């Protein structure tokens, strides 16, 4: 059974940045876009497992810090011409608090 888990407040995630959540399912990167949308991906690039949480966030994408693969925050897909996908997690914000579905 999956359930919503309280993570942190929205303000504790920097805009165009991320926080890493250590969970039983591995490290999860929780991103915040410029327009305050929040996304959660497995913190591992489909290419060579680079920590996506450490990449540069722009629009709804993140560039992996190791080899600059561009990963969609929305669905975890690598952008053309690269191929691969990182697992996504559901995340929501309520009253300034961020919840992750695990």
């Amino acid at each position, binding site marked *: 059974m999956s359930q919503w*888990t309280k*993570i*942190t407040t929205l303000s*504790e*995630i*920097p*805009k*165009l*940045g*991320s*926080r*890493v*959540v*250590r*969970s039983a399912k591995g*490290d999860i990167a929780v991103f915040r876009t*410029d*327009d305050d949308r929040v996304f959660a991906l497995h913190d591992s690039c489909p290419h*060579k*497992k*680079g*920590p996506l949480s*450490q*990449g*540069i*966030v*722009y*629009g709804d*994408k993140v*560039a992996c*810090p*190791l*080899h*600059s693969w*561009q990963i969609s925050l929305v669905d975890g897909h690598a952008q*053309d*011409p690269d191929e691969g996908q990182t697992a996504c997690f559901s995340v929501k914000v309520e009253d300034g608090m961020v919840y*992750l579905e*695990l």
Partner: protein
Amino acid sequence: MEKMKLVVVGNGMAGMRTVEELLKISPDLYDITVFGDEPHPNYNRIMLSPVLAGEQTIDDIILNSREWYAENNITLHTGKKIHKIDRRLRMAFAEDGTFALYDRMLIATGSTPFMLPIPGKDLKGVIGFRDIKDVDAMIATAGTHKHAVVIGGGLLGLEAANGLKIQGMDVTVIHKNEWLLERQLDKTAGLMLQRSLEAKGLSFKLNMDTKQLIGENGHVKAIQFEDGSELAADLVVMAVGIRPNYALAESAGIHCDRGIVVNDTMQTFDPRVYSVGECVAHRGISYGLVAPLFEMAKVCANHLANFGIGQYKGSVTSTKLKVTGIDLFSAGDFTGNEDTEEIVLHDAVGGIYKKIVIKDDKIIGSVLYGDTTDGSWYFQLLRDGKPIHEIRDNLMFGQDSLGNTGHEGQDKVSAMTDEMEVCGCNGVCKGTIVKAIQEKGLFSIDDVKKQTKAGSSCGSCVGLVEQILVSTLGGGYAPPSSAKTICGCSDKGHEEIRQQIRDNKYLNIPDAIKGMAWRTPNGCATCRPALNYYLISTWPHEAVDDPQSRFINERVHANIQKDGTYSVIPRMYGGVTTPSQLRKIADVADKYAVPMVKVTGGQRIDLLGVKKEDLVDMWADLDMPSGYAYSKGIRTVKTCVGSEFCRFGTQNSTQMGIDIEKAFDHMWAPHKVKFAVSGCPRNCAESGIKDVGIIGVDSGWEMYVGGNGGIKTEVAQFLCKVKTSDEVLEYSGAFIQIYREEARYLDRTVHWIERVGLEYVKRRVIEDAEGRKAAYERLLYALQGAVEPWSERVKKRNEHKEFEDITI
């Protein structure tokens, strides 16, 4: 709201390239309908020669499959020729009665081969060389007949002749001029080419005019010349030129003058109608090569998307013959006249001929035969109109941009086999790149980088990739202009962006992106780090330094490693350390179980494999300043022992190195900056391969700039000689400051100097004493009050929650 309707007449490379460019920047603006008179989807016409030669198949050269049209919601009508446009009703009608309404129209009807108006031209077996149908006819004839005649010794004619020969026919090329390719080659190169082609089994009849074609039962049988002589011919290919297809546009009342007349925005005299490709006459010129078409497509798409920027100002073209085993290249005015100079290298036995035509210190044309390695370099110098006196001595011997590491020392792609590795970083072979260019329809270095990864890591093989593009595409390749745009988010170049940041005093990234009309809301991973650097270097102490626009290494002040751990390198000024420092480093390495301790190339110690959460504690324990080993900024100042201990030393190089490293500590730059100071000309600190290399001599210090020991070894060039160590600081500081202010982000000093010229640097740093002092002052001002990042992070460790992981 209903979308506007765009009707594209012509389903060829120019039209579809425009549609692709349009979809890239404005995918939802139009409902698009495409009419093409050929039964095929868009294919790569310039690859027809390899198809005829049996090196490619039709499927290989399809650029846009039918699925592509469907995916992009484009209505495609193949095999339907538009024969009437009603501009009042805004409708286009095909011969079979199909019609379409338009709000805007793009005419890209291309060209047709010019057929000599001689008796017999309508006989069966007399064809042009333009489309798949022609290629099919040639291959079919080759299966049953023997004698082929190609009229026209131009590029297309020779490629057709070569293909027919490979298909097994006896081929004779008829040419009315004294030598082949007279529009691309001078006589010397033309004769060399003829000899090579004769060695391949082709026959030539030069200075010949065709009188008529003789038929039998409606099929061509022979060709007769003006002098009465005859030659057997089962197939005649006319390749004497092309004619723009503008009859349709003209019949619709659109102004034409030997082509559809367009302005610099590719608009015809009807504002709703645009036109691109071989059918247009732009400033009186029609182009028959693919590179200009792509430039037109880009401009046209921009205007169709209502962005209204971008102008097409005509193209300088270059050509290359796509005949396997023959290397020739030509561009610009290669004939010259009494106002021009020539540099010529001619090795008749080795089969190499190179000619560069120069006027007013600029290259205006070039012909290369046998060795075309430097063709694209000359072409770029030509297009950019770059003064060449500084490089004139070496011009003939090539750019020397090759010979880098990572590809077995190869610098000539023609000498490489398909299996040889071009890109040593990503393991990409020559054959893979050639195949991708041909089958995926790639036309630029960026295309190749994206599709194959070759050249996308360290970049040392880009020169080879460019050669492969040139040899595979011929005239289809246009080298990128040196005024390149920052990234896909903006059409502006680096210089323009820096200027606008200065003029408008942008102090943060959101203002800059908004003010300069970026296409994306917050840039991308390419432009944001560049913008951030431009802001803080232009407005020190005022601009906001945005950590989210910095690469992770600069954000956390450590180097990320392949497994997500980091490396910690403290400063050791001038490479000098002490026993207590070493003890401290050893203790820290023990305490945090550092997996590897390594001495770096920059004379300091690297603690590798550190977990991110240990970084701050480690810095606290180390109590040493950051070595900035992760930065686009000042890295190390490497020194030799110098006069304090060395029996050869003439100057105290260690102290000089320490002084420089302390003076310029914390400095950000467009790329990493490395110094070295040697105490005598034996140069043990390797000053010759550093951004700034100082060499002590008995009477003072020599300064060298623009060296590089990395991807490509670049020897630093002599800048000047000074007397005192204060002068060393002032001169090198001024040099670095001007580099900081004017270079493009990710330019090393060598790349910047290559672009502006050493003379310029000398003028700014040596001749202009006031300017030098002012530049040095600006650097010192920028560095004033700089904060040591590690101790700062230790002090404010509780404020930076973002670096802490959340455990659940």
